């Protein structure tokens, strides 16, 4: 049973005007099988939290700890974290020109699984996974994320989720930039993986709309670099109605329209 424990996490980012503290003491524990929605206004530090856990070099951990099944994640390199079972679906997936999606996926799967998947099975597995997400097979030969639309990038992040089978998945605004159909397809992809494994999910979002498809067990309001309030799914309904005004002192909606 995987457990991700984040304790009193403080994170700074290096800017031209020196280090700037963004995360100001985050405490959160995610267990296998649980889905935690992290909801917060723009700039509250949600992506910073996800990058810090994944090990992005731009973010400096000034204090606190992150443990995966008791192992110190912060001591691991970025790729070790991924191989240990952490996965981050990025808000802005990166383009890698000249590296084909199929080569990338196979290289990643080989690294994470510890051995190269048998070619025949692999081809079938990828094909099915792509078709489940309504991804045209032609994407396999395109460069990683290069020239993909926002929605296409997000589908490919979830494709990787399904193929790399992490213990803990952090989904950073996977819903942003998706139209209604794409949101449904992508959410189904997440739910399919949730259904097939005991994954713990950190679902980061600004809006409540994805929660209609992926139901959270816990909802946390993220504001000014920390968790301001935690609760069950009913907290999302409250945010839907009231927005983030209570947490940031100004009106910012958590629902659309």
């Amino acid at each position, binding site marked *: 049973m995987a457990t991700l424990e984040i304790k009193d996490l403080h994170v700074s980012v290096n800017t031209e005007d020196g280090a700037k503290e963004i995360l100001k003491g985050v405490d959160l524990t995610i267990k296998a099988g649980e889905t935690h929605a992290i909801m917060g206004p723009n700039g509250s530090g949600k992506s910073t939290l996800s990058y810090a856990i*994944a*090990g*992005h*070099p731009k973010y400096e951990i000034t204090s606190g700890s992150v443990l995966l099944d008791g192992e110190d994640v912060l001591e691991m*390199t*970025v*790729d070790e*974290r*991924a*191989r240990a079972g952490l*996965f*981050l679906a*990025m808000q802005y*997936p*990166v*383009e*890698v*020109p*000249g*590296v084909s999606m199929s*080569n*990338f996926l196979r*290289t*990643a799967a080989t*690294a*994470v699984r510890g051995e190269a998947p048998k070619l025949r099975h692999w081809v079938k597995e990828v094909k099915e996974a792509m078709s489940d997400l309504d991804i045209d097979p032609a994407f396999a030969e395109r*460069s*990683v994320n290069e020239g993909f639309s926002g929605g296409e990038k997000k589908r490919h992040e979830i494709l*990787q989720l399904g193929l*790399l089978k992490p213990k803990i998945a952090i989904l950073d605004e996977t819903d942003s930039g998706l139209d209604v159909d794409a949101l449904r397809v992508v959410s189904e992809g997440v739910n399919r993986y949730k259904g097939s494994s005991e994954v713990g999910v950190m679902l980061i979002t600004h809006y409540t709309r994805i929660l209609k498809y992926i139901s959270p067990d816990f909802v946390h309001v993220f504001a000014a670099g920390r968790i301001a309030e935690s609760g069950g799914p009913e907290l999302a309904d409250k945010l839907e109605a009231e927005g983030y005004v209570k947490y940031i002192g100004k009106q910012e909606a958590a629902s659309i329209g």
Partner: protein
Amino acid sequence: MAVTTEDQQHGLTAHSHGAGAPVTSRADHFTSFDVNAFEVPGGREEIWRFTPMKRLANLHNGAEATGTATVEVTAAEGVAVETAARGDERLGTAGTPGDRVAAQAWSSFTEATVVTLPGDAKSEPTTITVTGPGAGQVAYGHLHVHAKPFAEGVVVIDHRGSGAYADNVEFVVGDGAHLTVVAIQDWADDAVHVSAHHAKLGRDATFKHTVVTLGGDVVRLTPVVTYTGRGGDAELLGLYFADAGQHLEHRTFVDHAVSNCRSNVVYKGALQGEDAHTVWIGDVLIRAAAEGTETFELNRNLVLTDGARADSVPNLEIETGEIEGAGHASATGRFDDEQLFYLQARGIPEEQARRLVVRGFFHEILLKIGVPEVRERLEAAIEAELEAVGA
């Protein structure tokens, strides 16, 4: 008319120079077959200012030949291979030396190699292997490649070995011919190579010229393209990989003097190690008569470690308003940490991730080479370069 420019500069030791018209027009560039018509360059001259003159083994300063380079040709069926003496009237028809070293090579070579692709026929690849004269030796050479009208074929020129070598390489591409050339500079660490390529394209001729420079202490290559009839199409591709201490310089010049011709220049380089230095100068001149010209040039450099320096200078001169399109782009960047992070976040170890990114960077050029045997060899060579430093 469409003129686009794009200049970006990243990295502390990357140098992208102001684009646009050079101080003196490329049209005034001096050429001559007479070595004495050129002054001995000191290194401050515009065309020499990036070159480490002290490391040129005096090729620019009258160095006598002390040895010879070995030229071996594995010719495809139908392709004629001859040696020609100085005075053979075919020699020098594709272009005139544009600097003192090229003129020195012209007056110093002992025997030229002439390779002729049959007209109106498709021939298999021909490989010309040029082996340097040996460490501490100096040699001069001359190659002449003629693709007769409507010929179609591939010529690979493979440079290897040691020593100092200067040469002129001519490509006469007849009307309607399609000539693909791959020139590989895979020299030993000590080698010095100064080479002038002259291509002359006939009506509706296409010329795909790929330069791959990996080895050598100093390599300086100056490919020049001229057109004699409408519809000529030149694609100049380059791939270079400089390690610590290497100086790899490429100076392309496309002279559009005839209307309705095309050119596309794409050079990409990677640098790693202390004092790795690359230079790309991309001159394009669209003369008043060259209406309907379409041209684009691009240079990208990937700086993998500190202490390496990439110079990149696109020069686009336009003397007519009636062009189809013209543009250039030049960018030198550090290794992209975001790409590395993304790949590593998917479990791919750092070393492997770096290799993927560099391979990806060169992929576009490798794809375009269009000669499968060569491509495989180059992929392996790039792999070896990356392994050498554990990048």
